[in-house]
Structures are given as structure tokens and as C-alpha cells.
């Protein structure tokens, strides 16, 4: 971060003090409701899947993820997910459907820049970092497990 001068710090403090604030409480309530509902949907998908295909625990988890990712991608495509996000905030970012939204939205936006450097590379603008950190951390954990067991 850049070092700020004293007058800049004073101005920033003033701005922070009088800037209109996001409504944290109502935002949290909405995030709670939306996030809770999406998780319940996931649970229901798992239940239905287990009932129909008698999945193992791991397969059930994969099936649920795949189904939710599909739903998230579809809702993004038809232009609904951004409206949900405007209402729900983190309630629709944190669930795996939000991950799916973060993959589809930049990719579809860059369709006109071509299928390879447009869609192909922009799929990973947000998903890329998530995979990089998720996978790297998991490998580190795996290596530590090797070391200590």
C-alpha cells in the first residue's frame, strides 16, 4: 500500500465518517435467508439423488455439487443470478452456485473476443484463483499429512 500524507489521512477519515453505509443488518439477514435456502436445495438434491441412484456418501457430494453448479450456470446464463446477487449479497456468492456464477459471467461477457482467448481464458478470471489456492492448500495439507503420519 502507498503511504498516505497527513492531509490525505485526515480526508479519508472524514470520508469514512460521513459516507453512506451499507445496511449491514438487513444485508446479513438477506444473506442468511438466501444462503440457507441454497444449502437446503443442495440437501434436497442430495436426498433425491440418493433415493434414485442409491449413491455412496462421496458420490452424493459430487452429484450435489454438479447439480448446483449446473443450476448456478443456467441462472447466470438466463440473466437471473445477478438479480439474486443484488438482493442476497454473500448469500449467493459463498455457496457453490456463486462459484459457478463467477465462472460463467466473465466467460459469457467475453464471447465476442473469441472462443479461445475470450471464453476459454475468461472462464478462469475468478475461478482460477479459487482453484489455485484451494488446490495448493490441499496439496500442502496432504504433504503435511504424509510427514506426520
Amino acid at each position, binding site marked *: 500500500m502507498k503511504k498516505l500524507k497527513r492531509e490525505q489521512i485526515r480526508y479519508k477519515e472524514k470520508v469514512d465518517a460521513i459516507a453512506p453505509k*451499507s445496511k449491514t443488518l438487513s444485508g446479513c439477514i438477506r444473506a442468511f435467508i438466501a444462503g440457507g435456502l441454497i444449502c437446503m436445495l443442495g440437501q434436497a438434491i442430495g436426498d433425491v439423488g440418493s433415493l434414485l441412484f442409491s449413491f455412496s456418501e462421496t458420490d452424493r457430494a459430487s452429484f450435489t455439487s454438479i447439480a448446483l453448479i449446473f443450476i448456478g450456470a443456467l441462472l447466470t446464463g438466463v440473466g437471473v443470478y445477478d438479480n439474486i446477487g443484488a438482493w442476497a449479497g454473500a448469500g449467493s456468492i459463498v455457496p457453490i452456485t456463486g462459484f459457478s*456464477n463467477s465462472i460463467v459471467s466473465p466467460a459469457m461477457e467475453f464471447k465476442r473476443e473469441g472462443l479461445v482467448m475470450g471464453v476459454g481464458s475468461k472462464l478462469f478470471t475468478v475461478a482460477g484463483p479459487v482453484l489455485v489456492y484451494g488446490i495448493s492448500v490441499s496439496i500442502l495439507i496432504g504433504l503435511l499429512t504424509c510427514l506426520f503420519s
Partner: protein
Amino acid sequence: MAHKKLGRQTLVFEKPPRIISGATIVGDMEGKGPLGKFFDIVIKDDTWGEKTWEKAERKMFEESVRLAFEKVNLNPERMDCMLGGDLLNQIITASFAAREIKAPFLGLYGACSTMAESLILGSMLTDGGFFDVTACVASSHFSTAERQFRMPLEMGGQTPPTAQRTVTGVGCSVLASSNYEGECIMDNIFVTGGTVGRVVDMGISDANNMGAAMAPAAVDTLVNHLRDTERDISYYDLVITGDLGSFGSLLFSDMCKEKGVDLGDRHLDCGNIIFDKNQNVDCGGSGCGCSGSVLNGYLLKRMHEGDFERAFFMATGALMSPTASMQGETIPGIAHGVILERGKL
């Protein structure tokens, strides 16, 4: 010696150029706003029949220039120079539109201050005797700006309450030298001077709080302008800022007061009036096209009809770049001021 300069930053024109025509084209949401009926063309679909938004913005740019010249029966290819810019990298809107218009072209980048920057430069070149007819143009487009500066459109999320919405719009003014004798739709609006702004950075780094990033630059330009010209603020009926938005405007008038300039009710911000409060735009509009379209579509018409005599128009720009922001840089602001006065030839 520079003899047309006052004080440190202010220019005074000997033969003030006139704004003889103007044209505006805006997007659907701007058309539904309170000023909708003042704009020449409201496009319903913001691709305007083009394949991409960038192409649509370019078409808006080009068509607004053609329309402004059509209004006064001039061929745009015959103009002396076109000065203009937009928000996109390499100002592709302006330069690609200039490719079609075929007039001599000077591309400008001043972020959202482009409308004032082009008017100042255009007036200088006219007063200097270089040009007779110039076009000053500024454009922005919500969907092209959003993908360059922020997030993909379909990404779900919330904007903080200090955010502003980039205006889809373009404004074009046609400047003519004082002895121009052709047709005109406005005959009494003169650009009598201008104040070139300094880049002011007060340490704001939040790209969703542009109003706060630009307000200090606007204060700086206004205060320096008044000092250079030794004028009192009461000289002006109206101080117009480009796109400070509601929060930026609050900071602006507050800081002006601290510097001993009491704006009273003579301040008006284009970003504040282009959208309605219930259009869900947080703090209002922003972008080059915001001040460009409001000035040419609404304010100049009111001035032409005599609603006010003297106005100081300051388009404000946040000179941010996503790359610099990622490197932890703060957002520098700039504001250029243009003196608009009603008068007779």
C-alpha cells in the same frame, strides 16, 4: 509572454468562441430518467443493432457528431478538427469514430473530465485563430466501462451505497469562432474562459467511491479559478460539476465552505440529476457521457433560453486504472473548468 492567461491556471479568451450546436444520444435508462425528454436520441437496446457494446458506443459517438452538424446544415467532414475522448483503453470509441468521420482528430483522455477538457482546448484553438469549426465530444457506455473497470454484468453481487452508475451517453458540442456567420441553433452561448485543473489525490483508493476521489480536485479548480480571476462565487448563477454524485457533491460543497466559498444553491451536479432516486443507482451517474449529455442536452438549452446567465462548468475525472489499483495506488482526480456566458455578438 502569455497574454491570455490569468493567474496560475486560468485562460481568458479575447474572441470567445460560441457553442452553436450540440447533440446527445443516451441509453434506455438515461432516457427513462428525469432528463429523458431533453436528449436527441434514446437508444432502447444498448447494442443499438451492433454486435458489441464497443461498436455501439462508437456508433453513438459518430452519430452524435453527425447529428450536431446536421442541425446547422454543416458537413462534419468539413470541420476543422474534432476533439474528443472516452473511457476505453486507447480511447477506441473516439478514434474509431474519427476513422469514419474523416475530419482531423485530436484524441483526449481525461477520464470523466473529457467534456470540459475538449471545450477548453477547442476554445483555445478557436480563439487562437487556428480553427473556425470544431466538435468537442465525450462518451461513455455502461456496459463497456463495466467490463473494463469493474465486474462482468451477470456477476451476482451488491454495489456499496457510494457507487455510481456509468452513464450510457454521448454529448457533442460544436464550437465556432466569434465571426462565424453560418447557421446556428444557439446564438448566445460563449465560452469566455477556462481553468485547467491540477491532478489532486487525497488518498481515496475505493473504486466504488469516485465522488470522494474527485471532489477535492473540483474544489481545487474552483478555488484557484476564483483566485485567478479575482471573482466572487456570486459572479456565477450556476456551478456545474460533472459526476460527483450525491455523496461527492456533499463533500464538494462542504470543502468549498471550508475554503470560504459558499455555494449556496448554485451548485448542480450532472450525475445527480440524470437519474431518478428510484432508478437504483446508489449515488447517481458517472462517466464522460454523464456531463457530456447533461450539458449538451439539458443545461445549454436552459441557458440558451435565459434560465441563467453565467455558469462555471467543471467536468470531474477520476484518473484510475485497474492495473494501478491492483498495485495499491490511490485514485487521482482532476477537474477542468469552463466559463460559459450568455451574451450577444
